[in-house]
């Protein structure tokens, strides 16, 4: 099965090289009918055809938390085994087909390392959700389509041209603050250095550069800056990178020589949730490609974004801010021309200076009560009532509400 697929891919590589891209854009992005409208980490379909197994992370960062599949939309060849792998974040997740469909991983689980796989034989579009987090946007789709293009990290050797000019990272860099949207091109170098513990993600929690492209056979060396605590370099999902337990010492190095083409995503495990992630793109760039939307947009699209309808929130704030003034101005108009009243008519106006103003007259008490003539009987009655009320409420709250429940002992 695998062999015939490889052969097929190899044969198609020639034609594919001309027109294919890393994503399915050149072959028409599948029409999901709005399925991904509320999925924050959806960034086009990742074309993973030509691979035996494709891994999808369950609990990736997205949708205001770890409530995403990564990649959410993937295209595979018939006969591919898709493996969903839980990263342990975001609570309990599952993988269940939308409507009728073959996917059902069972009850939600949260444990990292859990896997669920399904081999897709027939072509089609298979939408699925994580049931408890569907409302947040935790949805995905597998499009099974024959045909092929580059961009896999499996065997295939020199027949494939490599990942496209703008690889589609599928939202990988959404929470990486030092990713500026570009993949640094170091294809001219024999060895490439990436610093570990560069400034980013609110601290020294970044790889610099986070996305870099090299030619196959290049040795990439990660060098620790000594900042940001303990770091490591570990592949995301299956992958060859593993520098071991986190270390913090400046000058530590870890190297790996990349032979196979592909996109190798990796993280620093303890700081992954802060955004300490990177990717090494081996091979390419393929010409004639317009990747997805520039491969995993950075933190913000560069403009000001508002969640919720923009006009509603900003409109209310502005309205609230100005409404008292607007109202007052409206009142002013009605009353303009009417001079302020003075207590006696016809007072001399000053030639210069502010309008004169005076206070109301002091009111004399009807009955004068001195210190020795006054006993606050009413107050005494009120505070006595308050005393009794508080006492009763306290007893009720303490002995009925509080002690009536399971309590902490010792």
């Amino acid at each position: 099965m695998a062999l015939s697929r490889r052969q097929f891919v190899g044969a198609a590589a020639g034609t594919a090289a001309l027109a294919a891209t890393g994503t399915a854009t050149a072959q028409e992005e599948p029409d999901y009918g709005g399925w991904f409208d509320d999925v924050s980490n959806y960034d086009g379909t990742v074309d993973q055809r030509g691979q035996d197994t494709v891994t999808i992370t369950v609990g990736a960062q997205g949708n205001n938390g770890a409530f995403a599949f990564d990649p959410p939309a993937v295209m595979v060849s018939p006969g591919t085994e898709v493996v969903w792998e839980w990263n342990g974040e975001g609570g309990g997740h599952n993988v269940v087909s939308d409507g009728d469909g073959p996917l059902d991983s069972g009850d939600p689980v949260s444990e990292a390392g859990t896997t669920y796989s399904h081999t897709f034989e027939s072509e089609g579009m298979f939408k699925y959700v994580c049931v408890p987090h569907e409302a947040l946007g935790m949805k995905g789709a597998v499009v099974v389509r024959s045909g092929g293009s580059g961009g896999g990290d499996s065997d295939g050797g020199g027949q494939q041209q490599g990942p496209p000019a703008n690889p589609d990272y599928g939202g990988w860099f959404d929470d990486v603050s030092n990713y500026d949207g570009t993949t640094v091109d170091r294809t001219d170098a024999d060895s490439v250095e990436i610093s570990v513990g560069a400034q980013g993600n609110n601290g020294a929690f970044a790889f610099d550069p986070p996305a870099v492209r090299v030619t196959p056979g290049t040795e990439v060396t990660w060098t620790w800056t000594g900042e940001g605590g303990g770091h490591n370099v570990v592949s995301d999902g299956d992958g060859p990178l593993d520098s071991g337990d986190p270390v913090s010492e400046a000058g530590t190095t870890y190297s790996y020589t990349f032979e196979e083409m592909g996109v190798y995503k990796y993280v620093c495990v303890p700081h992954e949730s802060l955004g300490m992630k990177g990717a090494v793109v081996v091979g390419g760039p393929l010409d004639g490609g317009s990747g997805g939307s520039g491969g995993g947009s950075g933190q913000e699209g560069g403009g000001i974004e508002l969640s919720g309808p923009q006009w509603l929130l900003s409109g209310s704030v502005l309205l609230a801010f100005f409404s008292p003034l607007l109202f007052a101005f409206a009142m002013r108009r009605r009353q303009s021309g009417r001079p302020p009243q003075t207590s006696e008519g016809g007072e001399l106006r000053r030639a210069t200076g502010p309008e004169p103003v005076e206070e109301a007259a002091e009111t004399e008490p009807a009955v004068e009560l001195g210190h020795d003539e006054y006993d606050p009987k009413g107050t005494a009655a009120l505070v006595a009532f308050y005393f009794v009320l508080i006492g009763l409420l306290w007893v009720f709250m303490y002995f009925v509400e509080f002690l009536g429940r399971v309590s902490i002992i010792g």
Partner: protein
Amino acid sequence: MVFVDSYPKTSKLVRSEFLVSFIALGIGALFGVIQALHRTGVFRGFVSSADYYTILTGHGVLLALVFTTFFIAGLFAWAVTNSLERELPQRIAWSAFWLMLTGTVLAAVSIIGGIVGSPSILGHDLEADVLFTFYAPMKAHPAFYIGAALIIVGSWIAGLAYFKSLWEWRSENPGERIPLQTFMVLTTMLMWYISTIGVAVEVVAFLIPWSLGLIQNVDPLLTRTLFWYFGHPVVYFWLMPAYLVWYTILPKLAGGRLFSDPLARVVFVAFLLLSTPVGFHHQYTDPGIPSGYKFIAMTNTMFLLLPSLLTAFTVVASVEHGARQRGAKGYLSWLRDLPWDKPAFAGCMLAGLMFAAGGFSGMINAGMNINYLIHNTIWVPGHFHLTVGTAFALTAMAISYWLVPQITGKKLRQRGLAVFQPYVWFVGMAVMSNAMHRAGLAGIPRRTAEPTYDEFAFEGVAGTVGEMRLQIAIGGFLLFVGAAMFLIVMADTLLARRGGTLSVNSNIPEPLSGPDHSPRILDNYKLWTAIALLLIVIAYGPPLASMVADGLFAPGSPPIPV
């Protein structure tokens, strides 16, 4: 002569402080109604649930920190000037204002960053979804912490202006008792100086360098403890100005005289002594703090009830005196013979009434083990909306009706709205707060955008959960209307023309029992400050020592941006 003509410079200062305060009130109130509609599920269209927390941070900071501090600065400036009969030292007072305003803008901008996509400014994301309590290891943009620090430092300088005024007055009036209003202002400021040490250390020594990346870890328990060292006395920073109004102005509004000046001084000294060594009652359920210290905090807190209970008696007695002077008879019918149609009076009375209820829920909060019942549930916001949200806020609004004409020289406009506004606020608060208390008993949490969970359902204790949610939404909406009414009155008055005869009179009659009846030792600030510091050393010394014994930054946590 009207205050604005006697003291034009200080009047300008008070107007500026009030302007900032009222703007913060408006935006904070809008955020409040957005929250009320969102978390009850009535309308979630304004923001996403994730951005709810930005709104919540804005609501807390703008109302509990900006609205309050600026209003109090204005009120105190008036009170000191009025009672010492001299203008404040202007340079000091104005630098305080500008410093606080700069801090406010910094903090506000970093908070608002959270709903406009958190652009990266100077290497950090501009957001501060850390709420009013900004617990580490959650981290906001450094500008947030710097802004908070500037507001605090500005308030210190404002206090300096009041003290300088007193010293100048004293050199001209040797041997005289400090006038009551100034005494209250200075006692409050002394308490404030002592209590802000905690949050100043937390922010300046730990959070600012940590958010800038200059230090790697902070100890979350230590920073939390330093915050709550400040976090309880800050409520007295809000309450004591309200007491100043109730003790010195409310009796006159009722047509009476203050029942006892000496007792008022005793109450304020008690607050100076006891406000700070009670902070652990906000940390009853914290690990890492031995329960012995929690017990001490509990007994201190319970005794802190005493000055408030005494205030209840003195203030009500003073108001009753006013009713009696109007000719009222009977045990309770005198309540009718009071000027309930005067907005300043009605507002203060309703605020005081609500405070009595808030006091009770506070007693439950303070009760160490019974705190388990309601800790971090929505009962807690139910409590503090009664206290800071009404006892302080409604008193502030009410006294503005009386004070703003005097500092502007303009008659109060929109009187119809003003008369009704305190009642709207009272009803809205009664509906919202009582629902919050009941919902808290059902276990519904506070600070939560959508308090429904997949794994279980809440059960109402008295009434269903749905009913409680609806009441919170309705009450919150009414409060928003009440705030809007107040702001309309203020805006219309501020834009009006000067002149004419005001409907308010500033004369404050002598108390029934005057300052000459109170022991001189009450005015001995040095003594009371020393005792206050001693009590703090006893309550906080050993626990803080054990927290820093294993290292100032250990057990440490790196910043986690939100």
